[in-house]
């Protein structure tokens, strides 16, 4: 009968109950979104970095991968040194640069990666074959911009001398494949060529140089130990493990995590306050009824249970509605943040993880329980005769 009484009491003031549920739903949606934001970035970044099995990134000392235009000299020697370190199973060199595709009315500028196709981890071949000398794989955006297809030949240059208005490092390359670039956005014009081709096109400035090494370690090897070994063997580089990269990214994006925490906490507090207020007012209106129930022999705990059930009902219904609302608002907010320039396609800021989501909502429902307990206990503990007297007078 307690559930029946609780449900009827909530229905008694339907518009008030509906508003309260709506308020809790918005709080729940906000809480869910903030939980998704707090965990989403880290999770999707970790997934992105670990996608091709590379656990360590090696960049010029004091820099992060592609943070600056600095490069690592004596790349061949560095590769051999790292391959000799215990636990290293693959070393993938990457040289990043800009290329200009000539021939059309306006040159098309694209980001190019010089890679070793046998061990690369920067793109996924969708069509065609891996590039060999004088061939490249291109992103869909680059193909669209140039109007080219697989099999076409492009006139590309690696540099532009503004003094004499001449493109340098020119070469004719064949488009041998179409690829999706893992660490770039879908709108980025990008191409991948063999490392030796890019180094040759870059002239002495790029000879035997790379921007980055990606290192794969054996499954049972501690990446941190390997990372330290690389830094010891090559003092002119900085080695970053996946965990370190995530930590660095989190530091740079710490604002979002802190915002998520603060807004999440505020949502929880607001939801709690709303349920407390509703339950308190509802209880105050029914003080006389509660005193009667106590007078006819209904126990204090029964009264508290019934009122707590009302609080749970509000919170649970609000949380369920908030779950649906939260998923939609998360998509909207995610679409806004995905507008960050240069953000890889694979990164999502808001990631729905059932465990985290349900834990957060369970916290909200628990706060609904707590919200009901105090006003319920207070009402159930009022002296019966005095309350009846006051209610009769009132």
């Amino acid at each position, binding site marked *: 009968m307690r559930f029946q009484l609780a449900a009827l009491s909530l229905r008694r003031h339907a518009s*008030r109950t509906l508003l309260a549920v709506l308020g809790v739903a*918005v709080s729940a949606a*906000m809480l869910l979104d903030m939980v998704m934001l707090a965990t989403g970035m880290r999770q999707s970044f970790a997934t992105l970095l670990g996608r091709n099995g590379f656990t360590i990134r090696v960049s010029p*000392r004091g820099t992060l991968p592609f943070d600056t235009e600095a490069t690592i*000299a004596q790349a061949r020697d560095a590769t051999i040194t790292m391959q000799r370190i215990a636990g290293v199973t693959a070393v993938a060199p990457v040289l990043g640069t800009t290329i200009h595709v000539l021939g059309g009315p306006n040159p098309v500028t694209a980001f190019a990666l010089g890679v070793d196709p046998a061990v690369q981890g920067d793109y996924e071949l969708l069509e065609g074959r891996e590039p060999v000398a004088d061939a490249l794989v291109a992103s869909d955006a680059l193909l669209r911009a140039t109007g080219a297809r697989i099999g076409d030949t492009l006139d590309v240059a690696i540099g532009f001398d503004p003094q004499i208005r001449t493109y340098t490092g020119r070469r004719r390359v064949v488009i041998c494949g179409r690829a999706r670039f893992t660490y770039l956005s879908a709108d980025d014009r990008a191409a991948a060529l063999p490392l030796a081709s890019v180094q040759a096109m870059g002239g002495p400035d790029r000879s035997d140089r790379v921007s980055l090494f990606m290192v794969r370690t054996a499954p049972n090897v501690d990446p941190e130990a390997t990372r330290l070994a690389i830094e010891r063997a090559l003092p002119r580089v900085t080695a970053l493990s996946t965990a370190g990269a995530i930590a660095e990214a989190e530091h740079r994006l710490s*604002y979002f995590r802190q915002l998520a925490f603060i807004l999440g906490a505020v949502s929880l507090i607001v939801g709690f306050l709303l349920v407390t*207020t509703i339950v308190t007012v509802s209880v105050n*209106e029914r003080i006389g009824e509660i005193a009667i129930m106590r007078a006819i022999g209904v126990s204090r705990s029964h009264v508290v249970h019934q009122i707590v059930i009302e609080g749970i009902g509000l919170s649970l219904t609000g949380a369920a509605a908030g779950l649906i609302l939260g998923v939609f608002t998360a998509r909207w907010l995610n679409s*806004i943040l995905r507008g960050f320039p240069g953000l890889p396609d694979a990164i999502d800021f808001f990631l729905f993880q059932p465990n985290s989501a349900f834990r957060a909502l369970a916290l909200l429902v628990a706060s609904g329980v707590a919200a009901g307990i105090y006003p319920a206990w207070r009402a159930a503990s009022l002296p019966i005769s005095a309350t009846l007297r006051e209610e009769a007078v009132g």
Partner: protein
Amino acid sequence: MAPWEAAVRTIAIDQRLAADAGLRVGDLVVLAAEPGRANGDTVRIAAIVQRRADPSEVARSEYRIRMHLDQLQRIVGYGDRVDRFAIATAGGAAADSALRRINSVAFGFRAYPSREIAVETSKTFVVVSRFHRAIGMITIVASATFLLCIMLLKVDERRRDVAAMRLMGISRATVVRTVILESSFVALLGSLFGVGLGFVTSALVNAHYQAVYRTPLRFAIVTPGTVAYSVLLSLVLGIGAGALAARRLARTAPLTLFGR
């Protein structure tokens, strides 16, 4: 001073580098293009400078030094090259004419007004701004719902008073006006409190993030426009919620309000 010290050139470093590397004015350091190079240029630190409040530098942990152009060109092997020129002009019209003149005679480079560059490099902050606006909208919806709920409850609590007033002959309009007046007062007080809280919070946010990112940049700024917008919005919401609740109460028959 030793003879060789007279030939040492000077640089300025930023506060962050000074703090992290334990450097002070007067210290000698070696600058080189590659790490671990023994034969770089020995220079003296002549000044420690504060970083500009540049949003684009906030999340980057890099250090900055200022040195003589020719020395840097020589150390990195850049030759007689620069990345860009920054040109100061006498004012708006002078800037436009300088722009036109430079672009007409430019040989291999182009001049842009600073604001165009600012827009281009601000895309990240445009995204952050849109995100904040979206969060703001959600917060407003949540606040409006909460406000309406609380107003309904508070006005409902007064229904016996309202019933007594109506039975005495006081008109619906007077009842509604009284409730709206009360809710306006509460909304106004709440708005003023909220503005104060906003000032305090923005000061805390700035203090916190300036320390975290080691920058003089102000992350939160409370402007007269922001205050006016917020106060207006909260007044509209508060009074609107009170009006809705009052109308609902006034429409109910007095005896029903008494529970009969």
